[in-house]
Structure formats: structure tokens, C-alpha cells
């Protein structure tokens, strides 16, 4: 028996007296956690001490900052579909988690975050490293709870995992006081399957289903838009079957990317502010909009005043609070996307919608001519983000896990990477957290160790969590890092150029030589500035075993188009800056 097996077996013993700390570790193992991310400190030290005896059964990744730990847990959760786990100490350790927790809340990522807390007798006394973590995290967690007695630990952890993963997933925080960690309990673990006050899923309403089918069968120009709900509900195959049978063109939100293969003939592209031309203009021309597992974010809809007003709207969604929140629906189908799509596929009539699909292809042809061609196959000197992203994607045969940070490169990554399997595109959507990319890639690599994991980041965002290079070096993680360096905070610079009279207020940013920084951590890397050296540089990056950093010099005026200006209608999408002037 290996040490790992011995530890796992020991963790499964029931009815034994152990400390609260050990109960935390055993409960995590009982829930199937294999990798956790964290940073030790005073109030969480008993848990770290208990972890020492289980360090083979439960792999702990020491990040360089708690924000790195939570983003890594997010990346891990997003690629695996499992609950991501992170641990931090009280006070600053816990407050450093908040950005990632807020990010996970808005992007529906299942997380269990465990924070140490001062001894219960000191609560509310402004003790050293005390902060009101339950109060602070309340608006950004699906559920949180403070544990002050050791006996409550197993049950609270079981509930935490159940709540985080079920229904619409989200982050859960458990704040455990130091005395609860030190105290003893008779350990017994039972998974949570039910909570009286919580309904994660609703049975499908057959009448509404029939109403939806009637609308679908009668529609001349139906259009399906999907979000991350497809992957969260493991409904990728059901989505494909549904569009294959009905011939309905489908477009994705930023978080829905990779749920449907890029080369699927009915995949018509990305929605929203920097999405594709066709999906945006056709939103305001379709006669039926079928939204699946998406929440009509303002970056997707533009102004709601003119959004798909001509169309009937079907909304398939697991969270009742999303129904009619932003867009009024004609038929709301509450529940699990997988089941609803399967049932719908059974009862709808087969169709082709040839002419309608052709309209999307025509729109795409216009976009290729005006935008995509010069982004991906530029002839002007100076590299573009689009060509780098596409070359990298192609090198991996479109099989890599692609992680991005936030900004212009994020949009280029979403537009020009191609995907052949789900859960392969990881980015911070709702919160738009710069600094997300590098630590999320760490989690993604640990979740999918046998796949290539590439992170694209800008020079700004990379510097926000650059310290996680230390984690990559220490854990010898083969993350491929591509910095698209345009020497500016590019997205803000683009808005300044278009909407703030080219007043470039504090967007020019000095960066270190990233390759030298990587070298200081023992991570190999290279610079590229010339187009004719790009392919070789990419090849060397992937052929080098372990981590690698490629810094690519990008033209600063490489703006992201098309663009729906903030507050404009999706059908007023601009294809070029000249359109903006008009």
C-alpha cells in the first residue's frame, strides 16, 4: 500500500475522536478533493498541521498570494467540473480571497473556501488578524457559515460541497475559529443530499415545454444563444442534437465558448460587445430567440430597449431569479438544460432553415473581409493578437485548454482560438478580473495535467499576479504563458481613443523584461517581434518540457473590432473605427 493509500484509508475511519482540523482534512478527502490551493497563517495553522499527515492524499499547492489560490481553484473547477477548494488564514488572508470569490459568484463557479478565524472568545474584539469574513463575503457567496465548535465541521463541509456544486453552482465560504480547529470531536462523515430550504433543480413543466416546441416549430428565423449553463449542466451533446435536428444557428456568450465545437456548421460565433457581426445583428432580426444557460449580461445585450424586441423569447435556465431579470421571456423553462434540451429535441420537428443560416454566413463573409482577415493574416509590419492566438491554437490542433486574462487579448483569444472539446476556455467573464489568467492556468493545468494549457495575458494583467510564476516554478507545472505585450493597458487605451478624444490618461505602462523575470524563477522563455519568427517560437515553446514564457510584441494600435459601444444596440455593431466616426 502506498503512503497515499494509507492516508486515504486512515481518513475514512469513522467514529474516532480527532481534532476539528483533522476533521476538515478528512471531510475534504471524503468529498473527493484531490488538489487544494492555499496559503498558511496564524489562524489556519492547526488545519495546516493536520494537512501535514495527509499531504499525499490531498495535494496542496502553495500559491504566492491568496488571490492566486482562489483563482487557481476557479481554473481547476472550470476545467474539471469539480468543486475547487482553497484555504487561507483570517484577516488579510481572507480579504485577499474576496476578488476571486466575487469572480466565482458572478461566473457560477463551484468553490469551497475555508478561512481560519480568531478564537471564538475573541470574535468582535478587533483581535490580531480578525476581520468579519462572514459579513464581508456575504454579498459574493452562494452560502457562508462560521463554525465555532468542532462537532459542526463535518456537517458544514458536507453542506458546503452540496450547495457549491448543485443547482446553479457558486462559491461557499466556511470561516472556522481556531478553537473549533483545536477542539476534539467524534468524527463521522455523511454527504449532504438535501436541504429543506434549498431547491437546486425543478421538474420540467410539460405544458411550457409544449409551448416552447410550438414556438420553435413555427419560427421562420429561430436563433439559439447559449452560455456556460451548457457546460455546467453537462448538456453539450444535447445542445448539439437539438441544433442538428432543428437546423437552428447557435451563438455563444464568452463563458459558453467551447461548449460547441468551433467547426460545427451551425456554430455562428460569439455574442456581445466584441462578438461576431452576424450573431449581433441577427439578434434583432430573428423571430425566435432561444436562450439556454445564459443570463443576458449587458455586455451581451447592449441596450435592452432595442434588444430582440421583434422576437419571441424562450429562456431555459436553472436559476429562477434569472427569469425576467433583464429580458422579458415569453416561455420560461426552469430546470436542468440537459433534460430540457433532450425533451425538446424529442418533440420538435426536424428543420433546415437553409436561407436563414445563409444570412449568418453572409454576415461572416463581411466580417472576414473587414476585420478577421487583417487580424489573423495581417500583411502590415508588426504582430497582431489575432494571428498569435490563431497560430497557437492551430499548433495544438485546437485541443489545448486556453486560459485568458482580461482586456483586448481576452477578446482576441475568444474570437480566434478554436475548440474541439468543452471546458477548454477559461476566462473571467462577469467580473472581468485582471490578474485572473496566470493563477487560473495553474489550476487548469493541475485539473488537466495531460493537456496543453496555454494562458494568454496582457502586459497589464500579467503584472497583477506575476508572483504566481513562483508557484509554477515550485510545482514544475507545464503552463505555457504567452504575453501579448502592447505596452499599454490596451482595452482602456482603445476606449480612450474611441470615446475620450485620444486622451491617454495613465494607460501607458512600463513592464519588466518578462523573459528575464521568468528566468529568475528558472522558467525558460523567449521574445518575438517579427512575424517570420513566430511559428518557430511557438514550436519551441511547446517542445520545451515544463513551463515556458513567450513574450510577443504587439502593435499598440491593434484594436478589437467589431464593437458594440457601451449602451448601444447590438445591431449598431461597428466593424471598424471609421464606423465609429460615422
Amino acid at each position, binding site marked *: 500500500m502506498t503512503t497515499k493509500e494509507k492516508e486515504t484509508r486512515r481518513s475514512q475511519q469513522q467514529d474516532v475522536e480527532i481534532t476539528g482540523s483533522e476533521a476538515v482534512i478528512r471531510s475534504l478527502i471524503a468529498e473527493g478533493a484531490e488538489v487544494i490551493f492555499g496559503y498558511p497563517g496564524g489562524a489556519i495553522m492547526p488545519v495546516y498541521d493536520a494537512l501535514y499527515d495527509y499531504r499525499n492524499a490531498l495535494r496542496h499547492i502553495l500559491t504566492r498570494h491568496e488571490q492566486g489560490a482562489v483563482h487557481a481553484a476557479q481554473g481547476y473547477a472550470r476545467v474539471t467540473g469539480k468543486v475547487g477548494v482553497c484555504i487561507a488564514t483570517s484577516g488579510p488572508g481572507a480579504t485577499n480571497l474576496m476578488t476571486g470569490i466575487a469572480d466565482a459568484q458572478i461566473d457560477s463557479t463551484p468553490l469551497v473556501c475555508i478561512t481560519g478565524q480568531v478564537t471564538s472568545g475573541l470574535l468582535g474584539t478587533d483581535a490580531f488578524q480578525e476581520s468579519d469574513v*462572514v*459579513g464581508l463575503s*456575504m*454579498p459574493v457567496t*452562494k*452560502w*457562508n457559515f*462560521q463554525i465555532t465548535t468542532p462537532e459542526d465541521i463535518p456537517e458544514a463541509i458536507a453542506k458546503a460541497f*452540496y*450547495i457549491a*456544486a*448543485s*443547482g446553479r453552482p457558486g462559491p461557499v465560504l466556511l470561516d472556522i475559529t481556531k478553537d473549533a480547529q483545536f477542539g476534539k470531536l467524534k468524527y463521522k462523515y455523511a*454527504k449532504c*443530499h*438535501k*436541504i*429543506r*430550504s*434549498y*431547491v*437546486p*433543480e*425543478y*421538474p*420540467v413543466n410539460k405544458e411550457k415545454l409544449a409551448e416552447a416546441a410550438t414556438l420553435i416549430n413555427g419560427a421562420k428565423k429561430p436563433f439559439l444563444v447559449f452560455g456556460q449553463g451548457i457546460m455546467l449542466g453537462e448538456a453539450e451533446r444535447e445542445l448539439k442534437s437539438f441544433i442538428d435536428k432543428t437546423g437552428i444557428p447557435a451563438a455563444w456568450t464568452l463563458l459558453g465558448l467551447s461548449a460547441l465545437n468551433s467547426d460545427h456548421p451551425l456554430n455562428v460565433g460569439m455574442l456581445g460587445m466584441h462578438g461576431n457581426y452576424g450573431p449581433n445583428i441577427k439578434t434583432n432580426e430573428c423571430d425566435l430567440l432561444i436562450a439556454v444557460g445564459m443570463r443576458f449580461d449587458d455586455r451581451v445585450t447592449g441596450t435592452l430597449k432595442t434588444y430582440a424586441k421583434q422576437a419571441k423569447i424562450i429562456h431555459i435556465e436553472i*436559476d*429562477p*431569479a434569472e*427569469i*425576467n*431579470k433583464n429580458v422579458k421571456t415569453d416561455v420560461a423553462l426552469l*430546470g*436542468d438544460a440537459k*433534460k430540457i434540451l433532450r*425533451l425538446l429535441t424529442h418533440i420538435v420537428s426536424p428543420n433546415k432553415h437553409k436561407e436563414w443560416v445563409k444570412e449568418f454566413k453572409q454576415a461572416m463573409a463581411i466580417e472576414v473581409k473587414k476585420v478577421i482577415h487583417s487580424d489573423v493574416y495581417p500583411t502590415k509590419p508588426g504582430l497582431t493578437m489575432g494571428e498569435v492566438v490563431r497560430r497557437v491554437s492551430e499548433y495544438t490542433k485546437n485541443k489545448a485548454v486556453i486560459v485568458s486574462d482580461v482586456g483586448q487579448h481576452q477578446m482576441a483569444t475568444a474570437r480566434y482560438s478554436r475548440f474541439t472539446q468543452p471546458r477548454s476556455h477559461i476566462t473571467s467573464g462577469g467580473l472581468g478580473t485582471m490578474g485572473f489568467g496566470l493563477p487560473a492556468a495553474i489550476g487548469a493545468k493541475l485539473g488537466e495535467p495531460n493537456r496543453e494549457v496555454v494562458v494568454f495575458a496582457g502586459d497589464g494583467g500579467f503584472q497583477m499576479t506575476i508572483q504566481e510564476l513562483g508557484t509554477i516554478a515550485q510545482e514544475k507545472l507545464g503552463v505555457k504563458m504567452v504575453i501579448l505585450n502592447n505596452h499599454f493597458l490596451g482595452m482602456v487605451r482603445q476606449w480612450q481613443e474611441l470615446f475620450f478624444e485620444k486622451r491617454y490618461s495613465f494607460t501607458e505602462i512600463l513592464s519588466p523584461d518578462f523573459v528575464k523575470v521568468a528566468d529568475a524563477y528558472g522558467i525558460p522563455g523567449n521574445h518575438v517581434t517579427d512575424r517570420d519568427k513566430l511559428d518557430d517560437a511557438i514550436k519551441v515553446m511547446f517542445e520545451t518540457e515544463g513551463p515556458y514564457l513567450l513574450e510577443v510584441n504587439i502593435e499598440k494600435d491593434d484594436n478589437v473590432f467589431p464593437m458594440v459601444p457601451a449602451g448601444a444596440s447590438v445591431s449598431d455593431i461597428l466593424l471598424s473605427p471609421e464606423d465609429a466616426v460615422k
Partner: protein
Amino acid sequence: MKQEYIISAYSENHIGLLNRITIIFTRRKVNIESLTVSESALKGISKFTIVVNETRDKVSNIVKQIDKQIEVLKAFYHTNEEMIFQEIALYKVPTAPLMESDQIEKLIRKHNARILEITPEYTVIEKTGHKEETQELFNGLNPFGVLQFIRSGRIAITRSPIEKLSEFLKERDALLAKIESKGKIAKV
């Protein structure tokens, strides 16, 4: 159009839930006109009664957000017409004017109020009713010098013959019975 709505939420008795519920209003910059929390007819289940002045759409969305909180069993909203509601007010007035004339006594009779305590210095009067009614008595007593005045949050019950909660709990039990592991409903 903005109007008064009464939000009722039933929940498990859980520390911090009040905060979770109120931040839903704060985040949307909706003012809470009154708030009452107490144990319901069912042991261990708390009832929140919250009054807001808002549009129906906004109230509907807020109620869904309240419902979404893990420990909330169910949240409803009603217009004033759909509910019978009451508030309580306490008034402290000096005893001297009460002794000197029958005007305060007449006010108490007219408003169907009652006296809780009389001391040589002050008298405490209690009145239940709608806000306008308790306000009217306040306006009547004010010329005599109201020393202290306090009004409670609103409590309300529906006009329908059965408690919505018991109806709801039955449905919830049936729904939960369908849920199997990982929070999924097995059969459709």
C-alpha cells in the same frame, strides 16, 4: 408605477440571514420602509415582513433574490389590498394635561387607543392600526406635548383562508422527495 408592497419571507432561523436579506435591497438602492422578524406558527421557522415602495418588476426580482438565499424557504409579495396588516404605536404624554381636561380622554376613545401606564409625570398610550391612523393620533396628541413616540414595523397576514406556508411546505416535501444525489432530479 411605484406603490407599497408587503414582502413575506419564511426562513430557517439562521445567524446572518437578516443581513443577507437586507443587502439585496441595499445593493439595488431600495429603501426598506419597515421590517419585522419573528418566529412563525411553525417552530424554528422565522417570518420576515418587509414593506417597500417600489415597482412590481423590481419587487418581483427582489423577491426572487430573497428566495434564492439558501436558508429561505419561500418568499412572497402582496399589495396592501391583498393583506390585512397592522402596526402598533406607543405614545408618552405628560399626565398633567390628561388631568386638566377631557380632551386627551376623548382622543383616546375616538381612536380606540388604550392606556398602558399612568404615573404622576407621564402616561403611556398604545394604539394599533395603519400608519395613517397611528399618525392621526400622534397629530392629535402633539399639542399636549408628546414626550416619546415609537411605531413598530408592519405585520401582515393574507386574506386567503389558509396559511400559504403550510401549503408550500407540502409542495416542497414532494419536490425534495424527487431530488436524488448531487441535487439532481432523477426522473423527468
